[in-house]
């Protein structure tokens, strides 16, 4: 999947995550803000990387503002933003 435009998904409400995806020329860049960064930052980044891999995204900047979302929510928001960024939804 090629990221061709900026896109967002999710909200800043509790238990949700706000995800921004932008085109990037130099591989994958993940920017993470989270209320549980110390405890779960690495796990969240790993989940984001998995979703990127599942969607065959090799170049993108993904910014995640996590408001205490569980894993399946973060994965859903990243996937939605990716699909919106390629313009197929």
């Amino acid at each position, binding site marked *: 999947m090629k990221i061709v435009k900026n896109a967002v998904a999710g909200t800043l409400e509790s238990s949700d995550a706000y995800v921004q995806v932008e085109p990037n020329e130099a591989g994958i860049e993940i920017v993470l803000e989270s209320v549980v960064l110390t405890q779960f930052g690495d796990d969240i980044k790993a989940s984001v990387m998995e979703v990127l891999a599942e969607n065959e995204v090799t170049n993108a900047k993904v910014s995640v503002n996590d408001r205490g979302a*569980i894993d*399946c*929510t973060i994965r*859903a*928001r990243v996937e*939605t933003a990716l699909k*919106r960024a390629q313009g197929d939804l």
Partner: protein
Amino acid sequence: MRRSMLFIPGNTPSLIVNGDILGADSIILDLEDAVSPAEKDSARILVRNTLKHLGLKGCEIVIRINPVDTDFWYKDLDEIVPHKPDAIMLPKVNGPEDVKKVSEYIAGIEEKCGMEKNTVKIITLIETTMGVENAFHIAGCDERVIAMFLGAEDLTADLRCVRTKEGAEILYCRQRLVTAARACGVDVYDTPFTDVEDIEGLYKDARFAKALGFTGKVSISPRHVEGINEVFSPTKAEIEYAHEVLDIIEEAKRMGRGVVSLRGKMIDAPIVNRAKQVIEMEKAIYGGTDHE
């Protein structure tokens, strides 16, 4: 057993993650009215991930998809059906053809995914005048249909009348739906009571629905779940009577008697059937004793 069904917006993670601890027998993750058109894609993926990863336990999971007159319904099914929700709620059903269309589409996904045929059931939401008039044909049109649900808000708009707490304007529709559903052997659920703060009104409305023959009631608020469960559960006296009925029937069989009476009333087949239903509910709710 399904007494209470609780709507939860399909794009609100904070409510979804707690869906299984709110006491409802069934939760309805809503992809229709609770989700704006711009967020349909997002909600669909969130609900799909919920089914795939979250494993909500202890309650039935129903997904309300978008109606067949939109471009969303088949995209909803593509994402949801492979993850085996207990049922799909189909809104704005006008006639059997709407159900058939969706059932055939679900069958295609089930086959493609190697699922057993008819794994995913359908609950039809009747909320148009045409749907009410076609209720009998809808209830019996497809083996996936397990229940009907009356949606009075859209219905009263279609009837061009004002929706009231007393509900006189929907009495005919309630009775028609109950009769159609019972004739076809499917469950039937009453419309939500929409005043979230009026708990007394909720009890009154639920008791009336039970008296008409509804199986249970749908809710838009977790605050109403407890009341609905209470109203649609058998009372202690009903449970005791049901046990007495089955006990006396057993005794009559042993004694070779054909006709029996209890508390001065003849016990016939409908009373025995009703007693069995009560004891089934007792077992489902309290883990009661088995008479077989």
